[in-house]
């Protein structure tokens, strides 16, 4: 697995998790489009079909709904399948299976059966792919009770939380972002954890402002924190890691100290993840603790464009985070999001 490597690369870490799971657990299999292709899912599943056989690493017809349903069905019969959607956008054809079936199955039958299925959705943005090939709809799924939603930011989490997702008896939506595939964590041994016990991580401590993110946004806020630190502003960084069920307590505790909250998210704003962080925090916090209006940075209210200059204007940047955080720390208790 990670032996001999100095550091763990995100895409490789996912592959390590698959190798660990497929190697140890005969009841794990993967199904989805592109699993026999060298380019579909980046290098994150390279040659797994050759190592574990095409009967356990199954490339599929262009049938998102049936493949997802089939994974759910197999998970009800002793298997722990991972169904792979190379783009979250395509997975919309399967939301009935995910939301109406998998997420509700245990509850509808009074807890007698549990679809231990992992649904891997890949966010694959940029590259002028446009509106139908760029979406990050994690907020949708965080809205659904019965479905756990995991968004690893680090290579280590990409690996260990994938393993934890597959070992969990509940349906789990595991979302990875191709913009993270080259990022690195220090080398580490695999740790099998209980997904239900995993909590948000405080990646950096700071007293001036709390920055909250998940997945790629965690990298943006971490970079922003470094820049803010150079300017004398100490930002606390919280990586949510799991967005359903969402544990907002660490954010509340942090904002109680910093008095300022800025949530950053790569999805849209309305009913999105950043807004949920604000709502969950504000509703648990004495407003007197707030030194500034809580704020969020999300995508603009538009579908993804194609041309490169517009893509640049579209996605949240470290600069925008730094600028907003500075205004919040410098500006006192003024509401900054005012239209």
């Amino acid at each position, binding site marked *: 697995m990670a032996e001999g490597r100095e550091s763990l690369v995100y895409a490789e870490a996912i592959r390590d998790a698959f190798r660990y799971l497929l190697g140890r657990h005969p009841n794990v299999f993967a199904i989805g489009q592109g699993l026999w292709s060298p380019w579909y899912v980046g290098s994150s599943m390279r040659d797994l079909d050759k190592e574990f056989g095409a009967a356990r690493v199954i490339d599929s017809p262009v049938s998102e709904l049936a493949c*997802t*349903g089939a994974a759910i069905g197999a998970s009800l*019969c002793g298997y722990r399948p991972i169904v792979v959607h190379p783009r979250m956008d395509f997975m919309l054809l399967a939301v009935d299976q995910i939301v109406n079936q998998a997420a509700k199955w245990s*509850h509808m039958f009074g807890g007698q*059966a549990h679809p231990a299925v992992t649904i891997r959705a890949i966010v694959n943005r940029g590259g002028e792919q446009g509106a139908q090939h760029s979406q990050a709809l994690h907020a949708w799924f965080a809205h659904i009770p019965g479905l756990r939603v995991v968004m690893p930011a680090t290579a280590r989490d990409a690996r260990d939380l994938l393993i934890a997702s597959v070992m969990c008896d509940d349906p789990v939506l595991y979302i990875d972002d191709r913009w993270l595939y080259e990022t690195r964590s220090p080398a580490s041994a695999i740790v099998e954890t209980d997904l*239900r016990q995993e909590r948000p991580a405080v990646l950096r401590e700071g007293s001036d402002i709390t920055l909250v993110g998940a997945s790629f946004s965690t990298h943006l806020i971490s970079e922003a924190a470094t820049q803010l630190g150079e300017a004398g502003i100490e930002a606390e960084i919280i990586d949510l890691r799991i967005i359903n069920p969402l*544990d907002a307590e660490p954010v509340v505790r942090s904002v109680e100290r910093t008095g300022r909250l800025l949530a950053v998210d790569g999805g849209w704003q309305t009913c999105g993840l950043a807004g949920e962080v604000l709502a969950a925090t504000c509703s648990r916090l004495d407003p007197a603790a707030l030194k500034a209006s809580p704020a969020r940075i999300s995508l603009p209210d538009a579908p993804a464009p194609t041309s490169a200059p517009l893509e640049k204007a579209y996605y949240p940047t470290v600069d925008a985070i730094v600028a907003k955080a500075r205004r919040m720390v410098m500006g006192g208790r003024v509401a900054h999001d005012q239209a």
Partner: protein
Amino acid sequence: MPIAPAGLGPLSDPRCFTEPVSIAGRSHEELRADLAMMLTIRFAEEAIAELVENGEARCPCHLGIGQEAIAVGVSANLRPADRVFGAHRSHAHYLALGGDLDAMMAEVLGKDVGCSRGFGGSMHLYGGEVGFRGSVPIVAATVPIAAGAALAAKMDGNEDVAVSYFGDGAAEEGGIHESLNLAAIMALPILFVCENNLYSSHLDIGQRQPSDRIARFAEAHCIPARVVDGNDVGAVREAATALVEHARRGGGPGFLEAVTYRWRGHVGPKEDVDVGVRRSAEDLAAWKKRDPVGRLRAAMIARGDVGDEELEALADERRAAVQSAVEAARRAPYPPAAALHRAVYADRGGDIG
């Protein structure tokens, strides 16, 4: 006027197939068991109809009275390790497999001892111990799930099969076609059972599809199909057995289209002849002559297998079992409000508040 004469031909014409069913070569014991199960199902559904009428059952109840032969015939060669999935009209599927009658009645009344612990009602039945892996009311939803259960069976290598029940209306959902292709290309051990009752809610199949023969989709996906009179338990049993055995032996999926008719409306106890767009009292009366129960009974009497008296005793016994299930269900408690959070996740033990 028969609906959409092209396609199924006489199979969808209620004036045909009204004679006693053929029972040549079938043992008395088997026939008696089939009859007993069909009676259980019919009485159970008649009892549910009453519970709905008197307001005791409040969940939506879709009755399959008139369709009993299909589940009974299909279940004949299934075993608990097989995995069977139903839909909104699944009392028969559950019972024919041997599902617990008391637990089903309790479920219909929303009780804690229900087969889905009071969290499903009539539209969500579960009987894991007999291989009934669940029915849900999103049309066609369990079809790909059953395909996945078949994939698991294939991986297990124990010659188990999956069974997916669905209706003619469900064939209009794209997911079914995806599932047929998946089953075909992966050679999955699954029996697709289309209970073609010629209706989806208030619309007859002629208003929804260009042909009334659903097996054309199986053929398009290169899946062997059999089309039978769904009101002839022997015909269903024979065709299902052949397809199931084929699947067990690794031959891949099979498709059984069983043509039938429901005597009651789409949902609830009424007959719907007033509100179904083209559902006529005449059609319904004709179909009642093609009664799966009556035709088997008549055949058994004609062969001298049984007399009226024995049949009456059997019916009384089945009625009593249903009655006792209803009474037990009435007495049972509802789940406590705290149960709301009980089964959202597999084990909330270590979980967030």
